[in-house]
């Protein structure tokens, strides 16, 4: 069940929890852009990645998320690392081919390939961690209210943004329920002799079908009943509704936006100016 805690809201009273979801969404976008900025050289890139990592860890500690949850979600990135290493080893980027790490037979593996793969990996890790912090510290309903606020301009085009945000919040609400279904069906099928772990591709594919078909059926039945329950409680996507949760912008939100904005600005400036702190400040040339 621990793996199912992924992306779930973790109730706690932290400063990050108290921020307005709109603030958090805005900051998330800025921080993700920051994470994907390119810098003057590898040393600066990894220095900035380190700074971002410290920030992310600080948020992480604040929200009282469990580290195991993060590690679990990053576990599957191993696969990604190997994949990226392979790609860059076979097709190294053409600039920076003078710095060979080692040879496999006669084939040179460049440091650039390894560092590029690591760079992408670190970016992905940071992005995942940031998104997890958002979902752990924000109730799904607040999150969708935030989305809805950003989408509200397209309401003038005749799009029912409230209905779409309801769809989104229901999806978020039912993810844990459906994950429990997955587990239940897998157990039931395993007890009938279906093996999800081993076997040839065709066997595994058949095992997957034995999971997906009942899952789709049970989800359809759920949605049928849910529709009845919602209608029975007076939900009408076209009618005017009030909102229990009002989004409110506080001082803390302003401070958060300013801080994240400043960090973003600094990173963009460093990126655009190809600023190298090692050269400029410490007068050492590092790659």
């Amino acid at each position, binding site marked *: 069940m621990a793996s199912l805690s992924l992306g*779930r*809201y973790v*109730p706690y009273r932290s400063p990050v929890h108290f921020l307005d979801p709109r603030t958090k969404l805005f900051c998330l976008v800025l921080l993700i852009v920051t994470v994907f900025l390119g810098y003057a050289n590898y040393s600066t890139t990894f220095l900035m990645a380190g700074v971002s990592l410290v920030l992310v860890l600080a948020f992480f500690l604040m929200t009282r998320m469990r580290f195991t949850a993060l590690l679990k979600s990053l576990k599957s990135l191993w696969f990604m690392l190997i994949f990226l290493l392979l790609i860059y080893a076979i097709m190294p980027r053409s600039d920076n081919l003078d710095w060979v790490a080692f040879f496999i037979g006669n084939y040179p593996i460049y440091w650039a390939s390894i560092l590029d793969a690591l760079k992408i990996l670190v970016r992905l890790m940071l992005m995942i961690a940031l998104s997890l912090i958002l979902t752990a510290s924000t*109730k*799904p*309903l607040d999150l969708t209210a935030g989305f809805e606020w950003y989408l509200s301009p397209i309401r003038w085009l005749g799009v029912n943004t409230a209905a779409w945000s309801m769809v989104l*919040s*229901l999806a*978020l*609400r039912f993810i*844990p*329920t459906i994950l*429990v279904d997955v587990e239940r069906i897998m157990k039931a099928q395993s007890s009938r002799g279906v093996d999800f772990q081993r076997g040839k591709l065709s066997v595994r594919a058949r095992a997957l079908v034995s999971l997906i078909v009942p899952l789709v059926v049970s989800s359809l039945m*759920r949605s049928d*009943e*849910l529709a*009845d*329950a*919602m*209608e*029975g*409680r*007076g*939900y*009408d996507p076209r*009618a*005017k*509704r*009030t*909102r*229990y*949760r*009002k989004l409110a912008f506080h001082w803390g939100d302003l401070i958060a936006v300013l801080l994240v904005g400043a960090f973003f600005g600094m990173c963009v400036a460093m990126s655009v100016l190809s600023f190298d702190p090692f050269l400029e400040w410490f007068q050492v040339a590092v790659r």
Partner: protein
Amino acid sequence: MSLAIKAEHISFSYAKDGPRTLDDVSFEIKEGEYVALIGHNGSGKSTLARILAGLISELDPNASLTVFGMEYDKEHSAEIHSKIGLVFQNPDNQFVGATVRDDIAFGLENRAIDPSLMDAIILESAASVGMEEYLDQAPENLSGGQKQRVALAGVLALRPSLLILDEATSMLDPKGKREILALVRKMRKENPSLTVLSITHDVEEAVESDRVLVLAGGKLILEGKGEEVFSHRELLEENHLESPFVHELSLALREEGVDVEPTLSEEGLLEELCR
């Protein structure tokens, strides 16, 4: 006393020209009455509940359905809707909100109630089902019985005049079942004009009711007080329904020559025996 439901010649099939899920069903339910609707799987109980709650509106032309004296038409359907509370079988599939608080608020939002009034209503209805300490919990952290209590609170918050329970206890353990039934009993005590239609597989649950309706193959085959309905043992057995245990016991005792009247309650049987 006025009627909560007056249903006449209700017929319905899901597919056009398909088999009739409901076939010429007519009955009345008085205001404040507690009626149990029993019937085997697929007998049309849920379909009937959906029709009563207005979730299905395409009825047979000669059918007539009046709820609290109002015909189900464009003009009145919103008002009828607002008087009916529904609780379904599966606790997960009716939990809409991310937390207990949000779930109870969902119905209030739909009724466009002023958000500043919501907290008080939410607290009051959560307290009345004993869930006030779980307001900020997510559904994953609640037991089935607790989720069902939240569903009841969500319905209560809307102050319904007619409560329809569609097998609301059938997925719960005996304790959860007893708790829900006790809550319904309490609600009826606090508000004697509350009409309850309880759909159930469980004949023991039907014992509590003022009246029992039996549906089989889309037809209403029996209707009356519990003792009366359960005395038609052959008919019930034909339709895969059994009598409550106490009732069976009293009948068996009678066959053995003990002088007891058939009864549905344990206390009743005791009294008969001590007589």
